[in-house]
């Protein structure tokens, strides 16, 4: 890690400084505006949101980086994961912890399979026509949304109780915080580190990172890149599905879940820089915390969450104006 910071280019160093300053500003402003207690709750919620967004955005970023496909169906993967997980969690009659595990398994496996079918059957023939891939995934998103609505009905699903293991609250700095949210944060961090290790320490990871720069050259070295493509697409889908199922005990399952997370993930990827893993991780924190703080703020001052929706989009526009290739993206144009 110290090696990493020592080798940073000036631009990356500036980006890190900007990020640190912005996060400090967020913490400060929430402390001043909401007072200690609410600020703690808000930031905690923001952290949880960050991790959920990260799960969706990291897949989007990896897929875009390696396959050059802007996967508009990523939101639909969240949706499918949430609904299949919901159905499994509700219907499996084991102890709540085990049925939750079963639900996670069902969501992850089914979304993974879906991803594999989509990549091999539909996206692969289109590698020569990138614009059509965008349109294709867009259409797939619409189909999946419609299928989910038909199968599970249009009414939103109420949140289910979290598994016994993660029920209840704990106290930190005099605040009562939900254990389940802590679980989500922990899970997100574990996955963040695991994927980071995968990318940096394994041969597969090295191949993926090389492929992000030039997949053709990797192929010319004798590596079957298509198989790696499929792996990455499935990995991205699985992470999104995982985000979907862990959302169920927290906020249930609704049909607009997919689009909501898709937009958030897109903003993260743009802010962090396309195809940059560290950028995606950092930007997830920025977006998650910004959203939570803005939501709290506009609830307090305007009585309506209007700021929450627009704040991150404005953030994205500002980043695009200041640093068009994102905080940690490669310079281009």
């Amino acid at each position, binding site marked *: 890690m110290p090696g990493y910071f020592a080798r940073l280019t000036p631009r990356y160093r500036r980006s890190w400084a900007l990020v640190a300053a912005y996060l400090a500003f967020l913490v400060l402003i929430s402390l001043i505006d909401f007072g200690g207690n609410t600020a703690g709750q808000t930031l905690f919620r923001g952290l949880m949101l960050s991790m959920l967004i990260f799960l969706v955005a990291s897949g989007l970023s990896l897929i875009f980086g390696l396959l050059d496909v802007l996967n508009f169906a990523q939101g639909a993967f969240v949706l499918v994961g949430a609904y299949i997980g919901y159905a499994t969690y509700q219907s499996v009659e084991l102890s709540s912890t085990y049925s939750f595990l079963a639900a996670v398994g069902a969501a992850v496996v089914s979304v993974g399979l879906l991803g594999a079918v989509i990549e091999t*059957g539909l996206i692969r023939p289109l590698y020569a026509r990138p614009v059509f891939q965008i*349109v294709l995934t867009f259409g797939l998103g619409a*189909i999946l949304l419609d299928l989910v609505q*038909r199968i599970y009905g249009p009414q939103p699903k109420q949140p289910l109780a979290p598994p016994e293991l993660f029920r209840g609250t704990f106290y930190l700095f005099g605040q009562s915080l939900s254990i389940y949210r802590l679980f989500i944060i922990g899970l997100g961090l574990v996955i963040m580190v695991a994927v980071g290790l995968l990318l940096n320490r394994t041969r597969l990871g090295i191949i993926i990172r090389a492929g992000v720069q030039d997949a053709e050259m990797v192929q010319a070295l004798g590596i079957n890149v298509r198989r790696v493509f499929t792996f990455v697409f499935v990995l991205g889908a699985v992470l999104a599905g995982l985000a979907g199922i862990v959302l169920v005990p927290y906020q249930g399952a609704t049909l607009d879940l997919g689009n909501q997370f898709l937009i958030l993930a897109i903003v993260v990827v743009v802010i962090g820089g396309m195809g940059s893993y560290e950028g995606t991780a950092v930007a997830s924190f920025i977006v998650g915390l910004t959203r939570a703080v803005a939501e709290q703020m506009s609830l307090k001052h305007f009585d309506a969450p209007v700021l929450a929706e627009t704040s991150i989009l404005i953030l994205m526009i500002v980043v695009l104006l200041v640093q068009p290739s994102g905080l940690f993206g490669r310079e281009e144009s």
Partner: protein
Amino acid sequence: MIERAVYRRVERIENPTGRKLAAGLVRLVLENWFYALFFVLLWRFPYLVADLTDSEVMPQRPTGGSVFWQSVMAQTLLIACLAMSYNVLFGFGGIISFGHALFFGIGGYTTFILMREYEPGARWPVLAGFAALVVVIGALARIPWRRLALAALVGAALLYLLLPGSGGVSVYQGFGVAVLLSVALSLLSGAVTLRLRGVYFAMFTLALAEVFWVLAKSGTLRALTGAEDGLPFRDLIPDALNPTPTAGGNRLAMYRVTVIFFALVFLAIRRYINSPVGRVIVAVRDNEQRARAIGYNAFHYKLLTMVFAGVLATLSGLLFVLWGSAKRVDPTLLSLNYTVEPLLLTLIGGVGTLTGPVVAALGLELGRTYLREETFTFSTRLFGLLSLWQALWVAGFALFFYVFRRGLRRGVARALGAGRDPGSRAVTLAAGAGAAAALIVVALVAQAIYAETDLDTYVYKVADLWQLFQGMLFVLVVMLLPHGIVGTWNRWWFNRRLRRMARQAAARAAGAETAEPSGGHEA
């Protein structure tokens, strides 16, 4: 045949000016007779429907087939205009935008918010805001200052004229301001992202449109926008602009205005694409670096295209709002729907073809309206052939073929002993359609199970299936018909002509060989 005969006749005209005139005239007619015929058909459409449905074109009470279909046709044409404007961006400019709905919806909001809220004191602040915007855009787009100053002056002058010093804003002035705003928004979003890779542009426009959509929906701004309910404008527009027949509005006149607008949009796009500027834009789409190397500022040409498409979308949106029966500007006009719709229509019709979006819009939108209320059950036979259960089997086989298409194709090719794989496209096409059918049937079964009714008696409405159908069309068109309807037709036609020319050339060469010896004598 006729063409050639006519041209031959023209060539025989002695007087050179007369010949030139006649040739031009003949070309005009030959190139446009189809469009002219279509225009006449549209013009007479209310009467045709009136005859067919035995209703009146302008009845006392606003009911009957003709009145209904006038409204449907007008809205379809406006959606076609929207799709054509999208095609200018996507098809001819190679710019993929996911925020076209912003331009479609912004016009109505601007006009009617201005009409309700404008006070003469706001004139100068608005002008100041405009000046600031021009400076920002100019700085971002690095436009030469002379050109920028000129544009700013023209814009400011127009705004000054459009915003009255006393009294309120009229509808038409509102329209003008709306167009100016749409120009400014296209310039802004273009200036920010057009230099970046296409994906950034797609995402930026998506986000920008979402901001406006969320703002329009938000309860906080209810006083201004009417939030989810929309902004009522029934009392703001004169009767002349009101196509709803109940209150002195003149539907037929509005219908004609719409048809003329449609024709103008078509002609404007055709003119634009065939103009020198349009050729550069197509060149930039095909190879931006090369176009830049020749000396064209690709960025400015793309900006211009964005403005052009944005203005057309805004105007279509304005008319579309007027045609709405609720007489409200509501947030759905800004929603992703109106981006997806033109994108889909462009793809189906043929990316980068002039008539494609229109063909697709007419087919899809009219079809949707026509079939909307149709219902069917599992026991009714599809096209009188199969029951849905049988269709599921067929679809299953098709899916199987699709999955193993490569092996099958190879097998067929080997069996025929040909190097190329014959009929591969047909195999894929059939299999893809089958896979789609399978998905539809699965969805239908799922829906019936969800409703906990007996499959055979559950009644489905076509309108309920529309979203699924639309998504399916996206995938199918992209996979199987990448050039769209008109694009595929054009290619087929072009290839046919090529083949014929090759055949004629070969015949001529053969003829020349045999004729050679005698030819020498004649010379």
